[in-house]
């Protein structure tokens, strides 16, 4: 039997991969733009997708806790297994911390987030310029960290596939599924 993730786990993984690539690209692109209607529009879209990702990550966490992922191959040394688990833990922490920092930043800067222009997300903080600037820095540092860890994540998956020639990468691909 080949160990494999559930179809739901795979769907969440790849859906969030797409969302995060989009959010990262949009985030790095939009923040240097001069003020324009397009900039305001892009900021709103970034926030809407960010809220969506923030909701999905909780769903994903619940799924992760209730559906044990396949074990790492025995060919991996204990140190590398620990490193893999630590890397995944950091990814989960960042996937929560990054949207949270964006949400708090929006509140502190005085721009409430209204999901898809319809559902207002409550402001957890009052308007505070210094705090807003601090949260902006935090949001950026967390995202740069996220980019670095994602690069490690992708690099590790490719190394497993092409160098170690194990099933770490393929077991996350849509083709093979054990149901659910």
């Amino acid at each position, binding site marked *: 039997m080949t160990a494999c993730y559930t179809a739901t786990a795979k769907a969440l993984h790849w859906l969030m991969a797409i969302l995060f690539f989009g959010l990262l690209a949009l985030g790095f692109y939009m923040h240097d733009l001069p*003020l324009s209607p397009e900039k305001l529009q892009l900021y709103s879209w970034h926030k809407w997708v960010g809220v969506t990702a923030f909701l999905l990550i909780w769903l994903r966490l619940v799924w992760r806790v209730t559906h044990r992922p396949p074990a790492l191959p025995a060919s991996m040394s204990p140190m590398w297994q620990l490193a893999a688990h630590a890397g995944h833990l950091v990814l989960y922490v960042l996937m929560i911390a990054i949207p949270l920092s964006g949400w708090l930043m929006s509140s502190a800067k005085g*721009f409430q987030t209204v999901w898809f*222009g*319809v559902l207002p997300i409550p402001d957890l903080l009052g308007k505070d310029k210094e705090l807003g600037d601090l949260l902006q820095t935090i949001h950026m540092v967390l995202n740069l960290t996220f980019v670095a860890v994602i690069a490690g994540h992708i690099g590790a998956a490719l190394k497993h596939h092409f160098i170690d020639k194990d099933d770490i990468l393929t077991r996350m691909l849509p083709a093979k599924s054990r149901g659910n």
Partner: protein
Amino acid sequence: MKRLAIALACVLPGAAQAVEYTQVQAEKSAIAFTYKQMGVAVDGRFRRFSSHLSFDPARPAAARAAFDVELASVDTGAPEGDEEVATRAWFNTRAFPSARFVSTGVRALGGNRYEVSGQLSIKGKTQEVVVPATFTAQGNSGVFDGSFTIRRGDFSIGEGSWAKFDIVANEVLIKFRITAAGK
């Protein structure tokens, strides 16, 4: 005349409250606004304005109000917004440094509610506006509260790429609290 008024105030019980409110207290007054961008309400304000006011609750029809708002003192809620709205597409503060409201009439609506008609001039364009306001006496001073909605398009505020209202809405809610000392 003033002495006569005081003498009358002592004699006539009904006239005892006849105070005319004229000294606007800037530190207790505010002119703010709320605009919507992408469906999100954002609060802003003007830091500086000057005013001339005379209001006697006993004679509301004789009341007068004039406000000059220094547009460059705008706080749009974001520093880059403050720079943007000073430009020609928005307020064009170099050519039109202030917005002006001059009352043309005040109508008592009963209770502490009033309706102030006047002319609002921004960026070389003048519109008739009707402003509902309440008046509350607080010790020796009086507080006027109210709000009204203008359409930024009526004043060409936000031209060119901002002229469409899909990102920044046309309606802008103007809110004010004016505190004036009586004499």
